[in-house]
């Protein structure tokens, strides 16, 4: 039901986002922040780069009405949904009545909660499959821990469960906003460009800048390669297909 009306910024056939540095708002201007992937968003404790929303329902409600995003209204959306006999029938079957504000938001949030990407090689390795990670990837994981990247990127979503300042020691990206919700690293290899401003075109670039900015560490090419290799093991599957990068 919600899938049929999904926003083009979140392409669930690829990485749950798109490959653009910044998406456009309906008036043609650049959005202020890079588009997050919708995959595994339900596992984050707050939604959006700034973590402005506590629930998926709150985020959906705001995005629908925000002129910079969906630029629509509930009346318009509900009118369209009600006019579609098939959609109206599906709402009736699911909620016992036609589409309304609450059922619409619940439908969107319920769909988003289904957008999980399990089955990454790292998950299999944690489950005991020793062959799931190569030696280089395991070295990358060890480096990821020893460099203390895990201080922020931890938990079931490998991030997404705290706020953090960026540019602690050196600037990482655009200074504003100063505090961001730490992004999840699941499927990170498929979601370039990186950072809230989309300023890091490659994962290696992002790793190098994060190490310098947040940890005051200058990484060698070898270290970057190993960490990038490890991060590649965090790519999961959606509907039995591996998550893939979107076209730029």
């Amino acid at each position, binding site marked *: 039901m919600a899938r049929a009306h999904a926003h083009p910024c979140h392409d669930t056939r690829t990485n749950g986002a798109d490959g653009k540095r910044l998406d456009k708002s309906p008036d043609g201007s650049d959005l202020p922040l890079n588009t997050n992937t919708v995959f595994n968003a339900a596992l984050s*404790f707050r939604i959006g780069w700034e973590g402005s929303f506590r629930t998926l329902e709150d985020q959906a409600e705001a995005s629908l009405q925000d002129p910079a995003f969906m630029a629509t209204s509930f009346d318009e959306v509900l009118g369209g949904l009600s006019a579609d006999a098939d959609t109206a029938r599906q709402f009736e079957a699911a909620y016992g009545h036609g589409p309304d504000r609450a059922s619409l938001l619940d439908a969107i949030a319920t769909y988003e909660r289904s957008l999980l990407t399990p089955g990454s090689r790292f998950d299999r390795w944690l489950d005991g499959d020793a062959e799931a990670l190569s030696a280089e990837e395991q070295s990358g994981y060890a480096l990821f821990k020893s460099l203390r990247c895990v201080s922020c990127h*931890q*938990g079931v979503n490998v991030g997404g*469960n*705290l*706020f*953090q300042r960026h540019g602690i020691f050196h600037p990482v990206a655009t200074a504003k906003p100063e505090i961001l919700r730490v992004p999840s690293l699941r499927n990170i290899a498929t979601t370039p460009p990186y950072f809230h401003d989309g300023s890091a075109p490659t994962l290696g670039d992002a790793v190098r800048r994060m190490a310098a900015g*947040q940890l005051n560490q200058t990484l060698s090419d070898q270290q970057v390669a190993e960490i990038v290799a490890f991060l590649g093991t965090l790519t999961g599957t959606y509907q039995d297909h591996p998550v893939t990068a979107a076209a730029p």
Partner: protein
Amino acid sequence: MKPTTAAIPLLLLLLTWLAFRAANENAELFDTALATVDHFAMQESALQGNVLSARAGVLRNYDPLVREANALDKSLSRLRETAAVDAQASATIDRLTESVGREEALIERVKSDNALLQNSLAYFGLFSARLSASDQTRPIAPAVGGLVSAMLNFTLDTSSDTAREVENRLDELARQPSLPTDAEADAVRGLLAHGRLLHEILPATDNLLKALHAIPQEQDREALRAAVLAQQNISRTTARWFRLALYVTSLLLVAILVRLGLRIRAQSMALHRRAAFEHVIAGISMRFVDARPQDINAVIEQALVDMAECVGADRAYFISSDPSVQSHHWHRKGISFPPDWPDRAAKLTTRFSPSAEGVVHIPYVNWLPPGAHRDACAALGIQGWACVSTPGMGDTHHILGFDAVRGPCRITRAGELSLLPMALDSIANAVRRQIMEQERARLETRLQHARRMETVGAPRQRYCA
């Protein structure tokens, strides 16, 4: 429908209502509210415990904190649903909501700072170890050692004095001449960078933790618990009163039902007595029909016995103002008639107002107001009295009376009293038939006598002629 009978459905409705109120349906609500308060306290303790674990570096990730913060938030919603029992409790929940909001904001800052803190502690240890492993004779070694020592102390005591000591040691290390190798220079730069970050974040994090523990949630929780308990006590007391009212109403209903049962039983017995009396009267009438004139007196005697036994009288009599009619008396063994009684019954009857059917009924003489009437009855040894008088032929009156001398009159029901005229009529008719039979016999005797005289006279006439 009599008022007593009409009260039964009303009492049943009242009982039903009282039963619902006495069930104290709110008891479960208050128990749930108290359990929610306890659950809230547990979530709160778990959250604070995990914050401390995170600060100590024991908590490997922040997911438990997120789960517990969400659970605390849900607990607040449940508290609002279940524990907002009055305005005071609602105000307390509002304060709790506000303090949980402050707590969550502080915890987010603790999480952020603690991540940096754990990072910098690790790097500080790494760089200090790297520098300590190098030649200890170099001039930088004491500065590094002093900084490490001060920082170690700073992790235990974040007071301003200790902070100043760390700052001095950092400045001292920064003033050291440049080192011969890039690796050592990088290590010193890293040590200084993370040391300065620790100098900033350690006291800030501790202050956040102090602020977190200073949030007065326990007072509000206890106030909320007290409010719920107070309402629970009120509810229980109210339910207790309703149970008492339920008990009293039940007793009242039982009393009414018992009274109703007794009344039905009494009416049933009265019907039985009336039926028995009617049966006796019918039997007496049949016997009068079958009786020969010379046997009627005996039948009347027996009728008095049967009726007296039936109605429980101690004395019974049939008297008539017609001197030619024989009076009939009956009394139980050991009980006798006083002088002139029941011959004076007609005179006593005039003292009381008979009913339209001529019935005088004195249920119990002792219930009569003191006075001549009561004295007159008492003088005759009467305790209860029922009699009926009907006019006979001409100016004559017949009286049928039943005396109770050992207690109140046993004839109490209107149904039995209404049969007294029938009983008297039955006897009076028999007496009338007896008089008429006697008259017929007398006339027949005279007729025979006249015939005999006529027979004797005819020869004489022929003779005289």
